[in-house]
């Protein structure tokens, strides 16, 4: 019951408020050590035999890091070598207050059983609690609390009978703190000293973050940035309107330019342009910064120059070079009054958003130097100066580096090496890089997650059959792309006695296996989606579920969630029924196989009849949907034929669509819409839905211009009008024109997003022309569908609810994560296609291909090669030789090179090759070969050896 404790009042004054809080001190907080007999701790965390081999500490010891050591050297603490660490509550609270990401990382380390990290609640321990003394700053008080706790530990442990030489070692980088600790008889080291003394892993030294006083020593450069304002001044400035707060977006193509997106009231946001190294003032992409607007006469226009920071490593020369560039960039601005943008300078950083960056090391020219520049893969991130002894081994490797700080007299931020990912250009390494850069969680599933998987051998029980509809007798089959192992959906169709048709969509019952709130569920929720890369799949749920128990494979009994309609021959829904079920799929078909069955009039088995019925209904449904204004857009999609041994791409093909593709799609759409209606009807506040907002009319400008260049008119008043005018947009003798137009239309669209019905009022799905929509049909690879399954299961009384499911705020937060993961998955996918395209072209020399101009720019044209679905830029400006005469007409838009005008949709021929001059940023280079413009176009070697010719013609 109530343990009577001495209690001390703590007063916290802020403003005029005086807050009195109780603070209980306890005597039942254990030290957590195995050697201790005094404490009654049942599961001590700290090992008796705490050995980290070190020159300095030859005895077994526990480490006690102070707050700054945890924040700055978290990479060190995370190393498997470092174990038996005592994290004091004081430290943990300070870390929590100062850095959320590091707080999460240290907590993960504490939860890791292998690490033996112990949290000691010293602030509530009777013997280690201290009160702040008169005149003592909060920081000093915390430092003292850390020393007191360390002292308590060393005395407490010495009382244990078989402690032996066991001691505690305090780690701090603060000189003052260190002195005081030494005075009180503690063993104390600077983090750096200690790490350098470790015998087992000398490489750990590279991961030491540079602390601020060291940073000042190593920079001798001439760039001096303006001081950042303290947070209090920034806040006052934002309040008074002198400063604006926004997110910093570095320009990918010009390292001396950035935009700050100012978060305005509501949806409104404005952009502030920032130019020049000093104005950028050490802000890094994605930081939240405060900017001050410059007077109107100093406003500039965004530069169209491409500037890449590729200076040499030699510090001095580099600075000069950089300065020259700054000047040049700023001078070369055209003074066009109309295009001037609000321009400002960064005055302070509100929140850094640094993460570990992937990239490559640029070795110093000085051989013995341990200081090197690191070039991140993401061009929006500045280069980072790191210290390492392994430079020669790291050459040509992709590595990860974390930023530690950016002193004001340093041209580059300082950082430290985190880990190596493998050699650059290597497919595995590059894939790892693109996963990391797109924040795709791809580590193997943890033991905790796997422990929630069903035990094998698994089979359907009597219990399951009792509560589910037994649909095993139905002729259900699945239709998927070839090689698909995670089969989400299966279909059936049969004629009823009354002449109507019964159509069923059966979806894998993933929510039966993934129960709310457990580790498996949390992991799936965090991953959000399965990510499909070329030749690689990063699962959202462990393989046992994705490819086996949930996958609706043929001739095995599987649990499903079924949506069954009764329809008349005209595809009008007469009734809808949802039920959990047991099915036994009769066949897993590919789109092509299904198509063959439908077309082959000699086949008349149940499966084929079912498919024909489905196909017939699908056509009616699709017709009706298009009638309502659903858009059929297209984007060039490519697939790679991957060599089964080397996993290198050997051939690529554009995806072709068959009738059966759209047959399956049509029923999935119908099921999604039916489910969306049902869950919204039942849970108007917390239904998880998906919407696709109509784009603002200005998005269509480019499309309208493009069409009018061919004498066509595109109407954009409604989805229906757009769809109709796209259908009518045909140019005689140019069949591919319509596809090009649809590709352009796709670029005008908005992103479709998940949202919680209680938090939004606009549900419209523009692209599908449906007033309501959700995702129900792919729970194996999308977490949204799992939530929708759970909601639907509650709605039909097939499962119980749980609190978070009914909490609209939690659900909105989940939607945010899902939207983020989907977007990132999409980017990663594109990056993977680009990587494989490069690998494909690597060994193929130079190709000459036909393409169409998709966009016309000031100094370039963007060409689409339909054969490869490949898009590339043909530049007309050269670095090393004089550029041709260029004139750009915005109205056309037309670019005239010498005397040849280029319009959108013109047919051209280009040569394609791989440019590996920059190993980190290999890219596809395109050059014009037809039309022939002297001095601009390149000639294609006609006589190419036959053997080298790729076998692309199928």
């Amino acid at each position, binding site marked *: *019951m*109530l343990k009577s404790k001495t209690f001390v009042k703590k007063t916290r004054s802020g403003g005029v408020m005086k807050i009195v*809080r*109780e603070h209980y001190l*306890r005597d039942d907080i254990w030290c957590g050590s195995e050697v201790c007999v005094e404490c009654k701790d049942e599961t001590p965390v700290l090992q008796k035999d705490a050995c980290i081999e070190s020159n300095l500490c030859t005895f077994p010891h526990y480490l006690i890091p102070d707050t700054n050591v945890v924040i700055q050297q978290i990479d060190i603490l995370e190393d498997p070598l470092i174990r038996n660490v005592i994290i004091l*509550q004081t430290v943990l609270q300070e870390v929590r207050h100062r850095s959320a990401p590091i707080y999460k990382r240290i907590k993960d380390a504490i939860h890791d059983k292998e690490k033996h990290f112990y949290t000691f609640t010293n602030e*509530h321990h009777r013997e280690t609690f201290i009160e702040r003394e008169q005149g003592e700053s909060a920081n000093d008080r915390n430092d003292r609390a850390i020393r007191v706790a360390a002292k308590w530990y060393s005395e407490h442990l010495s009382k244990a009978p078989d402690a032996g030489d066991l001691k505690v070692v305090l780690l701090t980088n603060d000189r003052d703190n260190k002195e005081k600790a030494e005075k009180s008889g503690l063993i104390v080291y600077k983090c750096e000293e200690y790490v350098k003394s470790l015998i087992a892993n000398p490489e750990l030294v590279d991961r030491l973050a540079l602390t601020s006083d060291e940073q000042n020593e190593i920079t001798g450069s001439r760039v001096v940035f303006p001081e950042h304002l303290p947070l209090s001044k920034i806040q006052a400035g934002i309040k008074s309107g002198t400063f604006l707060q926004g997110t910093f977006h570095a320009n990918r193509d010009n390292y001396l330019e950035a935009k700050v997106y100012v978060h305005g009231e509501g949806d409104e946001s404005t952009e502030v342009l920032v130019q020049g190294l000093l104005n950028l003032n050490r802000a890094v992409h994605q930081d939240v910064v405060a900017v001050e607007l410059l007077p109107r006469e100093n406003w500039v226009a965004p530069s169209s120059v491409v500037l890449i920071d590729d200076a040499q490593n030699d510090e001095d020369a580099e600075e000069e070079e950089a300065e020259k560039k700054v000047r040049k960039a700023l001078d070369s601005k055209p003074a066009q009054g109309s295009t001037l943008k609000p321009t400002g300078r960064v005055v302070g950083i509100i929140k850094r958003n640094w993460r570990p960056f992937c990239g490559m090391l640029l070795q110093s020219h000085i051989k013995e130097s341990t200081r090197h520049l690191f070039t991140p893969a993401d061009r929006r991130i500045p280069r980072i100066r790191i210290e390492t002894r392994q430079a020669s081994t790291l050459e040509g490797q992709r590595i990860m580096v974390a930023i530690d700080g950016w002193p004001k007299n340093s041209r580059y931020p300082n950082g430290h090496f985190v880990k190596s990912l493998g050699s650059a250009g290597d497919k595995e390494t590059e894939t790892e890089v693109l996963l990391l850069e797109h924040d795709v969680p791809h580590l193997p599933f943890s033991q905790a997650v796997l422990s929630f998987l069903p035990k094998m051998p698994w089979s359907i029980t009597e219990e399951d059959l009792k509560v589910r509809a037994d649909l095993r007798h139905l002729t259900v089959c699945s239709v998927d792309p070839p090689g698909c192992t995670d089969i989400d959906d299966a279909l059936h169709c049969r004629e009823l006695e009354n002449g109507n048709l019964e159509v069923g969509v059966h979806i894998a019952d993933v929510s039966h296996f993934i129960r709310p709130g457990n580790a498996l569920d949390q992991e799936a929720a965090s991953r959000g989606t399965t990510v499909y890369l070329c030749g690689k799949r990063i699962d959202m749920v462990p393989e046992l579920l994705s490819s086996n128990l949930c996958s609706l494979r043929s001739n095995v009994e599987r649990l499903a969630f079924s949506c069954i309609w009764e329809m008349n021959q005209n595809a009008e829904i007469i009734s809808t029924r949802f039920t959990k079920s047991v099915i036994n799929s009769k066949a897993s078909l590919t789109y092509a196989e299904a198509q063959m069955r439908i077309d082959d009039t000699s086949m008349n088995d149940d499966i084929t009849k079912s498919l024909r019925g489905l196909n017939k209904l699908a056509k009616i449904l699709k017709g009706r949907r298009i009638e309502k204004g659903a858009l059929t857009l297209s984007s060039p999609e490519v697939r790679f034929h991957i060599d089964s041994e080397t996993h290198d791409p050997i051939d690529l093909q554009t995806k072709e669509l068959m009738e059966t593709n759209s047959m399956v799609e049509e029923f999935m759409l119908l099921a999604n819409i039916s489910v969306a209606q049902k869950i919204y009807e039942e849970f108007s506040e917390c239904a998880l839905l998906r919407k696709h907002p109509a784009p603002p009319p200005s998005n269509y400008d480019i499309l309208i211009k493009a069409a009018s260049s061919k004498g066509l008119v595109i109407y954009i008043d409604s989805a229906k009008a757009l769809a109709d005018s796209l259908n009518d947009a045909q140019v005689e003798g140019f069949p591919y024109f319509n596809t090009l137009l649809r590709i352009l239309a796709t670029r005008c669209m908005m992103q479709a997003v998940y949202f919680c019905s209680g938090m939004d009022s606009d549900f419209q799905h523009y692209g599908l022309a449906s007033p309501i929509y959700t995702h129900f049909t792919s729970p194996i690879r999308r977490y949204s569908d799992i939530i929708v399954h759970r909601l639907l299961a509650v709605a039909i009384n097939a499962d119980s609810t*749980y609190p978070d499911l*009914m909490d609209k705020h939690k659900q909105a937060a989940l939607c945010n994560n899902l939207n983020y993961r989907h977007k990132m998955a999409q980017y990663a996918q594109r990056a993977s296609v680009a990587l494989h395209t490069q690998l494909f072209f690597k060994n193929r020399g130079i190709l000459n291909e036909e393409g169409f101009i998709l966009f016309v720019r000031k100094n370039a044209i963007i060409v689409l090669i339909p054969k490869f679905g490949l898009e590339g830029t043909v530049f007309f400006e050269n670095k090393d030789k004089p550029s041709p005469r260029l004139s750009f007409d915005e109205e056309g838009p037309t670019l005239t090179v010498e005397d040849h005008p280029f319009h959108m949709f013109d047919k051209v021929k280009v040569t394609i090759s791989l440019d590996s001059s920059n190993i980190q940023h290999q890219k596809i280079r395109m050059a014009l070969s037809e039309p022939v413009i002297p001095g601009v176009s390149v000639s294609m070697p006609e006589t190419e050896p036959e053997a080298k010719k790729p076998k692309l013609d199928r």
Partner: protein
Amino acid sequence: MAGVELLSDQGYRLDGRKASELRKVQARMGVFAQADGSAYIEQGNTKALAVVYGPHEVRGSRSRTMHDRAVINCQYSMATFSTAERKRRPHGDRKSSEMSLHLKQTFEAAVLTQLYPRSQIDIYVKILQSDGGNYSACVNAATLALVDAGIPMRDYVCACTAGFVEDTPLADLCHAEESGGGTTLALALLPRSRHIALVQMDARLHQDHLDMLMEAAAEACRGLSKVLDGVVRQHLQEVSVLTRD
């Protein structure tokens, strides 16, 4: 990271208590000589004073008279200096009237009113310092005051709050925990019979969590009843020592 961490991974709350631990309770009975009964209680930093008059003849309007039992009249108020922010609190604002009503309902369920037909019992409670759980402190103080006045009751009425953080119910919330955004439930219990005199919850709570929360609050009330019982026995002992001579 926004807000404060109400429950640490090690299972300690902001003030160092574990999830089911109560705050320190100190109480005295018979603090005012002129009243029929009085008591002062401290539950952590929440301090309340209760005074009981009666049973006596019904004052004021006669129409309120019940011919089969006593009328209980409760008045709740908060001292101007009771919170961090100093506020003038007019008498009979909505919050205090509501609280008065809740107290009335609570004690109508506990006091054996049928023993005193046509009479009235007045209970006045004042919060001197507020740090969460005002209602429970008032109920507990009033119980002691009623005992002091010698008014027969079915049992002690013990009240306590419980709240929810992540998936753990916390007993006896302090102000910081109450304003932490979670759901707070206040329960007044007759511990021996386990009858509920009053239960109150303002925010939404998922049904699955209700039982757990109720159990936590009930457990806390039973804990409190032991403390209150101890206070009463102690008081009796002191009084009997004084009256012996």
